[in-house]
């Protein structure tokens, strides 16, 4: 039987099968413990930023992790105190998160004493338009007792799904 060019997927008798190509791309990272310190600059929770997306694709960003060991500084030394940490998804070189949440971390011990009183959190967000971006997960101390200080981020896991639109 002869075939006619340019009728792929248009002739069920001749070309009944779809190609079955993947429609999404994924990437992921696990993180090391990170000390989030101060309210002047946000701190990256990732070992490196991740490039993802494309001209005709959006990016679903998913991150899970935990915050613990909040502290304040008294005469330059860390002392136990609660903290509010803002964790966000940052695109490219922006200093403003595209999406963020606040996490309350209650008073616990000072690192590395246990228990650290870990508080879990998750972020789920999709870029609103097509495009390639670098993705970063950053955190900043927002509020707490006494002098500005911070907390620790541990056990973070980032998953990216790039979907064509």
């Amino acid at each position: 039987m002869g075939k006619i060019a340019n009728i792929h997927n248009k002739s069920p008798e001749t070309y009944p099968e779809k190609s079955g190509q993947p429609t999404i791309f994924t990437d992921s990272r696990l993180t090391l413990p990170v000390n989030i310190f101060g309210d002047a600059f946000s701190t990256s929770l990732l070992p490196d930023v991740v490039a993802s997306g494309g001209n005709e694709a959006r990016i679903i960003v998913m991150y899970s992790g935990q915050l613990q060991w909040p502290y304040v500084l008294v005469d330059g030394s860390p002392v136990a105190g609660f903290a509010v940490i803002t964790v966000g998804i940052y695109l490219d070189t922006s200093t403003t998160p595209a999406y963020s949440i606040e996490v309350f971390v209650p008073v616990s011990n000072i690192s590395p004493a246990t228990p650290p009183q870990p508080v879990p959190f998750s972020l789920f967000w999709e870029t609103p338009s097509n495009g390639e971006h670098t993705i970063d997960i950053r955190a900043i101390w927002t509020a707490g007792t006494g002098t500005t200080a911070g907390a620790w981020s541990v056990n973070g896991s980032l998953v990216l799904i790039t979907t064509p639109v």
Partner: protein
Amino acid sequence: MSKIAGLKGRSPETYGTTKPSGLVQTQPVANATPVPLTNSANLLVPVVSSLPKGFRNIILFSGVLETPSAGGVQVEVQIVIDSVVVYFITVELATANSPAPFGLSFESAALASGSTISIQALTTGVGQTATAASGSGAIISTPT
């Protein structure tokens, strides 16, 4: 029979059937039944074993932890693949009877045939008890 250039993998007569192995597959996972925790317990029963060979798997799971104990209880929630803990978080249950929500997201390497995925949890202190409830999630299997 002659072949037509540029149609490789697209002509079933000439090149055989293209396998749909490149497609993304998803499956829900859930357990509405509360699971008591002391030693390690599976939050999913049975474990997930129907996984496509050679695919990576994005594992998403959320749930709630609670303890009747007045003192702080720590619970470790783990993603376990073929008996290996590949990712975990710990959750502090600071107050009795106060539900603490949690969520996990993780991507596995490409898995071999017969691999299993389970979500497990355990209290980290001797004699401590807690309960996991309202577990739900999904597994997204993607070709490599």
